[in-house]
Every structure is written in C-alpha cells, then in structure tokens.
C-alpha cells in the first residue's frame, strides 16, 4: 500500500488482482445485479486508488479495508435506489469460482474460511442472523429493519450485538475444530 500511496499504478494493479474477486463477490451479493456490482467494484477501487494514503495498518488487513470500502459503495448504490426494488437477498447466478492453478492454495484457504463463516452464521438463532443479513448485506438501517420486522429499534440493536458476539465465538469454535 505504501507504493500505491505514492501513485504507483503497477503496485495498485497487484492489489486489484489480489482482491477484485472478493470485492466483486460482496458487491454482487449485496446488489443482486451484475451491472450494478461492476459499477460498485469500479467505483470502490478508484476510490481506493485516490485515497490509498488513508489505509491504516493498525486497523486491520488490506483486504478488510478494501471490503469495507466496497461495502460502503454498495450501500450507497442501494440507497441511491439503483437497486432499491431489490428486496430479497439472493444468490441467483452466483457461481463458485473455479480455482486457478496459480492460486489453489489461497483458494483453498478462502473456501475453508467461507465454510467456517457460513457455519457460524447458520449456528446463530434465526432472529439474530436475519437482522445481521438485512443490515450488512441488505444495506438496511436498524431503524428500517425495526420497521420491517415490527420490532423496537432497541431490540434490533440488541440482536445485532448479540449476533455478532455469538458469531465471533462460533467462529473461534469452528477454527478450533478445524485445527
């Protein structure tokens, strides 16, 4: 990221190649449309290029930082109404990536990680995983979710906090099992 900060396009290309699939996958899951996901991907990476200096290593990995940017742009797209009518979270058309020979090891790690996180999410009580999905992947505010589910906003906030705490514990358990 240090080179990107100095305007090194080659360094940026390496970052792009390394994280574009994860970024596109998240955008596609959130927006539900390829064309919108492509726009989000492009906007997010150009924002990253222009603000590379803001990356703070102490706040996590480059991938997490990039995915936060992608998430923000996808929420923006949802709120602009580009895909406002899309109200169902779905995975239609999503195809599991076929591992390329050059990144098999990394892909295996990704798959294991995906398995762990999905397992942890599935282990949550339905009402907790539901509010997390609506908030994170659906781009809904807790107030919108409260209105949608006809619950007090405080209850929604509580479920989110509890869900995340359990998710953390469940993942730690899965990691322990995996080892």
């Amino acid at each position, binding site marked *: 990221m240090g080179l990107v900060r100095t*305007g*090194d*396009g*080659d360094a*940026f*290309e390496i970052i*792009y190649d390394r994280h*574009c*699939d*994860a*970024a*596109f*996958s998240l955008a*596609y*899951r959130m927006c539900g449309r390829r*064309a*919108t996901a*492509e*726009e989000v*991907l*492009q906007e997010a990476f*150009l924002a990253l*290029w*222009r603000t590379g200096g803001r990356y703070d290593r102490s706040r*996590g990995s480059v991938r*997490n930082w990039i*995915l*936060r940017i992608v998430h*923000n742009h996808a*929420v*923006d797209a949802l*709120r602009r109404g*580009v895909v406002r009518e899309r109200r169902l979270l779905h*995975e239609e058309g999503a*195809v*599991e*990536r076929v591992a390329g020979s050059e990144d098999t090891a990394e892909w295996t790690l*990704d798959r294991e*990680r*995906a398995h*762990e*996180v*999905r397992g*942890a*999410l599935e282990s949550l009580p339905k009402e907790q995983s539901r509010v*997390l999905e609506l*908030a*994170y*992947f659906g781009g809904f*505010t*807790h*107030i919108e979710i409260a209105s949608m589910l006809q619950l007090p*906003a405080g209850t929604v*906030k509580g479920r*989110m*906090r509890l869900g*995340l*705490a359990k998710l*953390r514990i469940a*993942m730690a358990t899965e990691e322990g099992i995996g080892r």
Partner: protein
Amino acid sequence: MSEERERPLPGEGGCGDAAIYLLGLLEEEHSRAFVEHARTCALCSDDLAALGPAVDSLPAAVPQVSAPTHAKRHVMAVVRSEATQARRASSRRGVQRRWVGLRRLPSRRSTLALAGVGLLAGGVAVGGLSTPFGGGSAGGAARVVSADVALPGASAMLHESRGDTWLTVAKMPEPAAGHVYEVWLKRPGGAPQPTDSLFAPTASGAATVNVPAARGAGEVLVTQEPAGGSRRPTGPVLIVAHLA
C-alpha cells in the same frame, strides 16, 4: 449515503452502539461521536475489539464470483491515466520550483541561471511535444489520448497498451431506445469502417470498450446506431480520438 437515510434515533452513537457502528449504520456525525465515546468507555472499547472481527468476517460467507475482466481494464485505464497526469504535474512543479529558486540567485549569476532554465524548460516542452500520448503508463507501456466529444459533460479517452486499444467513456448519456453506440475506425482518406464494438454505458455513463485492429487507423470514431450496429454511420460523429 445519507440523503435518503432515515434520521437516527436521538442519542445514537452513544454507549452500547458498537455493533451498529461496526455495521456502518450510524450517520457520520454519530459515528464520530461514538468513536470519541469509545476512547473513554471500556465497555464500548472492548465491544469494538470483540465484534470487529465478526463484522470483517461476513464477506467471507459470500459465494465467490470472478470479477469481470473488462472492469479491470476500465479501472486500470483510469489509474494509468491519473498516474501519468500526476507525474506530469509533479514534473511541472519541479520545474517551477527550480525556476523560483534560480530567480533568487544573485544578479551576477542570473544570466547563466536563466539560460539554464531556458534549456530546462525547452527540454520539458520538447519532451511534451514529442510524446503526444502522455509519456506512457507507470510501467511505460500505456498511451492515453484524450478524445473530442460532442456530448455535453461527457468525456472519452483512448488507451493503448501492449498491442491492445480500448476506449473509456464517462458521463455518456444512454443511447436512445433501440440504439447503441458503435465504434468505427477511419484511416487517412478512407471512409469509416465498422468494428464489432457496440456498447451502452452503465447508469453512471461509464463504459470501456475494445477497439480491435486499431493499428494504422488515423481516428477512432463513435456514433449512435440502431441496435445491432450499422455498416455505415447513420448518425453524427459523437466522439473522435486522433491516433496519429
């Protein structure tokens, strides 16, 4: 992001809001308030540390889909172009700094100094003229040509790299119903030749389109044509990029 967002409840961004902060649900003002609060609140500080990794893990649950290759082409075209412009600007600033510095020299040295500056400035100008495509990408391989665009507010750039040529457009209006934009190649003295490149921009007016077999062409043109494209231009030329 916030224009359509409902106003948060009074007091949001306070104690116990780590989860909604991490999920990005707080307005910027309330996010800042929460961050300030968490600096001095052990409970919220612990929550941030404990819940943050859970939020960061959520994208891993998403089925992985390969990003389209043309998206990379578009992003990297913009990146290369901006990197080139930044280097040029930096280089110009360097010349200006040297110029200012030399003007402060004692008068006895001024004549020699100004002669030196003249040579330096001349070198930069000649360099600029001799590399009309902007001096290449960060890797030295890309060329970028700014195109003339007849559509108000829209812009277009032609890019060449490693034998590939492609056009990127920004803020292009959608073509009329039942129409697409078509890319043409025009050789000196010849009529525009159609290519297979037909496109419609995204909702934000962006598009990246291949320009096949551009070598030897003098100009790349874009017109609006009926869906499926035309063999001869039927509408006015909207974009012209001069290759030579």
